[in-house]
C-alpha cells in the first residue's frame, strides 16, 4: 500500500537556499494534512486476452493481496477519473503481478493506481499528535474520497490544548504564554476494519498559537514569525499599541524555533528607546536574555512586559525592538 502525504499546512517564507519554512499554525483555523491512498501502482494497462474478453487487465507494482470478486477502483490518468469494477482473476507470478477486471477495455485507458475496497473494507486515515512531548490519546480520522484522498485536520485537538487565562503576570520582562501556544509532532497511518498498522511520523516539529484567521489569510502564521529572511510584527492588532501609564501592559510576540547550544551562543536582545515630545531619545534600555533562560521561550507566544517604573515623566513614546544576536 502506498500512502502519500500530498500537502501539509506549512508555508514557505524563503524558497531560495537556505529554504525557510514556517511551521506555526493558528488553532482556530483548519490545519489539514492531505493524504492519499494508492493500494497498488499500475505499471501497465492492457486488454484481457482470456476470459472475460474485452476488459482491462492491469500489471501492478507488487503482489496482489486481494481476492476474485473484490470491488476495486482504478484511477484513469487519461480523463482523471476513478473507474469502479471487480477483480475477475489475478496472477502473482514472476515477474508480473496482473489483475484481470470487468472494466470495459479502452485503448486510451491509462491506469495509474488501483484501490481494493473489499480487502481494505472501511478504509480511513488516522492521525495523532504528540503535543508538548505528551502523546495525545485522541486521534483524528478521515475517510478518503473516491480518489483515495482525505484531509486530517489537527485543529480540533490543538484547540483543546489552549486554555483560558493568562500565564504572563507582568512580573518579568518576557514571559511565555504557555496556555496559548506550544509545539506538536504529527503521525498518521492507514486503517481499515481489524487493522493495526504502524504509525508513520511526519518529520517536522510544528508550533501552534491560539489565533483566528480568515480563509484568505490561511492558517499559517508565517507573517508573525521572525526569521533570517526578515523581521516580523508583534502579535497584536494595534499598529501602535498604546501604553496607558501606570497600568499593567504587555504585548505579545512569537518566539520562533532557535538553535541553542551551538557556538557561538545566541541571545535575545530587547531594545527600548524612550523619547520626549521633541522626538529626542532620552533613555535607552537594553535587556539581554541568554540561552538558559531563552530555552523556556522558544516555540511559544511570549509577552513583553514594560516596567512603568523605568518610564521617565517626560517620555511621550517609545520604540521597542527584539533581535536574536550572538552572545
Amino acid at each position, binding site marked *: 500500500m502506498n500512502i502519500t502525504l500530498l500537502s501539509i499546512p506549512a508555508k514557505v517564507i524563503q524558497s531560495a537556499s537556505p529554504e525557510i519554512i514556517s511551521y506555526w499554525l493558528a488553532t482556530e483555523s483548519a490545519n489539514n494534512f492531505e493524504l492519499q491512498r494508492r493500494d497498488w501502482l499500475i505499471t501497465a494497462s492492457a486488454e484481457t486476452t482470456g476470459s472475460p474478453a474485452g476488459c482491462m487487465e492491469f500489471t501492478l507494482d507488487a503482489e496482489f493481496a486481494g481476492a476474485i470478486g473484490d470491488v476495486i477502483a482504478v484511477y484513469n490518468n487519461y480523463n482523471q477519473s476513478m473507474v469502479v469494477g471487480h477483480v475477475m482473476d489475478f496472477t502473482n507470478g514472476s515477474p508480473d503481478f496482473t489483475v484481470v477486471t470487468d472494466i470495459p477495455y479502452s485503448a486510451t485507458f491509462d491506469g495509474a493506481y488501483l484501490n481494493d475496497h473489499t480487502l481494505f473494507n472501511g478504509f480511513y486515515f488516522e492521525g495523532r499528535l504528540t503535543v508538548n512531548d505528551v502523546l495525545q490519546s485522541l486521534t483524528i480520522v478521515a475517510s478518503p474520497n473516491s480518489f483515495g484522498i482525505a484531509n486530517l485536520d489537527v485543529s480540533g485537538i490543538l484547540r483543546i490544548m489552549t486554555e483560558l487565562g493568562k500565564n504572563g503576570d507582568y512580573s518579568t520582562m518576557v514571559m511565555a504564554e504557555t496556555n496559548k501556544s506550544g509545539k506538536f509532532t504529527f503521525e498518521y497511518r492507514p486503517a481499515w476494519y481489524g487493522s493495526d498498522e504502524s504509525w508513520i511520523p511526519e518529520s517536522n516539529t510544528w508550533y501552534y498559537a491560539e489565533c483566528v484567521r480568515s480563509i484568505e489569510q490561511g492558517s499559517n502564521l508565517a507573517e508573525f514569525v521572525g526569521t533570517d529572511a526578515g523581521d516580523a510584527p508583534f502579535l497584536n*492588532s494595534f499598529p501602535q499599541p498604546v501604553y496607558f501609564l501606570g497600568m499593567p501592559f504587555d504585548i505579545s510576540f512569537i518566539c520562533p524555533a532557535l538553535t541553542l547550544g551551538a557556538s557561538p551562543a545566541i541571545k535575545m536582545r530587547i531594545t527600548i528607546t524612550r523619547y520626549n515630545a521633541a522626538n529626542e531619545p532620552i533613555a535607552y534600555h537594553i535587556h539581554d536574555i541568554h540561552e538558559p533562560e531563552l530555552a523556556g521561550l522558544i516555540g511559544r507566544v511570549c509577552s513583553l512586559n514594560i516596567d512603568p517604573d523605568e518610564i521617565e515623566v517626560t517620555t511621550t513614546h517609545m520604540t521597542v525592538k527584539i533581535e536574536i544576536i550572538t552572545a
Partner: protein
Amino acid sequence: MINETTIPIIWCRKGYYLRWYYNGWHHWNFFSGTVGYLTAGEKYRTTGIRTVELSSGVVGVDEISAIRSVLNARECYLYTDGGWSECRVQSGNVVVQRNNIDAYELLCKIVIGSRNVSTDGYSVGKTITIVTTPAPPPIVSPEIQNDIYVGRFNAYGGDVRLFGGIDRFINVVNSDKGVYTIYHYLGTTKFITLGVSDYGSIYAASSLRAMNSINNYSHVANISDDATFNNSAIRFFINWGNMADTKIAVGEFDAAGTTITQLYGTPLTFGISRVATGTYDITHDIGHVNYIIMGVGKGNVSISLRSMDEILGTSVRVRLSDDAVLNDCDTRFIFIWE
C-alpha cells in the same frame, strides 16, 4: 526578529481598564458610562450582576480595528482592586463619528457577575476599580547635575550598576571588540570617563584608554591593554558638570601641544607645550604638589596618559602611550587636587 514598533504613552483616563486575548493580548482604557445593578435572591443566597456601558473614546481607523476585536474575544478581563476579573462583553456598536476625519468610537457593555454567597442578605459583587487619572507630575527640565558617577559594565556591555552619583540611567553597548558605546544622556559634551579592568586574569591589564564620538548623550570608549583592543569588564567613573566650587578641573589638549582648553571645573590657568613624542608639559596655578592628573586619548586609539612626573606647584610633565612606546595624541584630562 521583531520589527521596531512605536508605542505611544498616554496617561490613564477615568474609566475601566480591560485586557482581552484575540490573536495576542490587548489592553485598552475605556471610558465608563451608565452602571446598572441587578440582584436576585434575598435571604439565603444573593447573586448580583453589574453591567457597565463603555466607550473606547474617539479613535482613528487603525485603533478601532484593533479595539473592536474585544467583541470577538473568547476571554476578557477587567482590572479591579482585587486583580484581574473575568467579564463578559455584550455586543456593541462601532460608531462612525465623522466620516470626513475617519474617527470612530466603540460602544459596548460589559457584564460583571458576583459569585459570592451573601452573608448579610444583599451582595452587589466585587468592588471594581475605576481607573482614575493620576495627577501628572510637573514637567522638569533635565538639569545637569554636578556629580560623579561610578558604575560597572560587563565584557559584553549591557548590565550597568550604579553606585554613588545621581540616579541616572546609563547603559553600555559592546559594538566591537574593545569598543563600547556608553549612553550617558548627560546633555553635554563636557565630561571625562576613566576606567580600569574589573576582571582579573588575562584582561587585568586592560583599561579604558580612549574616548571618541563624544556627543550629548553618548560616547565611545576603547578598552585595551597595550595596542590590542579587548573586551573586559570595566569599572568606570564619569565626571561632568559645573564643579566650579570643587577641586576638580577637566580640560583637553591637542596632539601638537599647541592648544589646551578647560572644559569645566574650578577655573585654572593652563598652558601646554610638547617636549618630545608623547611628552607634554602642562602649566597650571594649583599652587602645590598634592594633586593627580589622569587622562584618556581622544580618538579611536588605545593611547592614554600613563605617567606624571616633574610634579611642581605650577607645572607637571605627562607622558602618553599605548604600549611601551610614547605617542602623541589629543587628550582629555582631569586634575584633582587637595
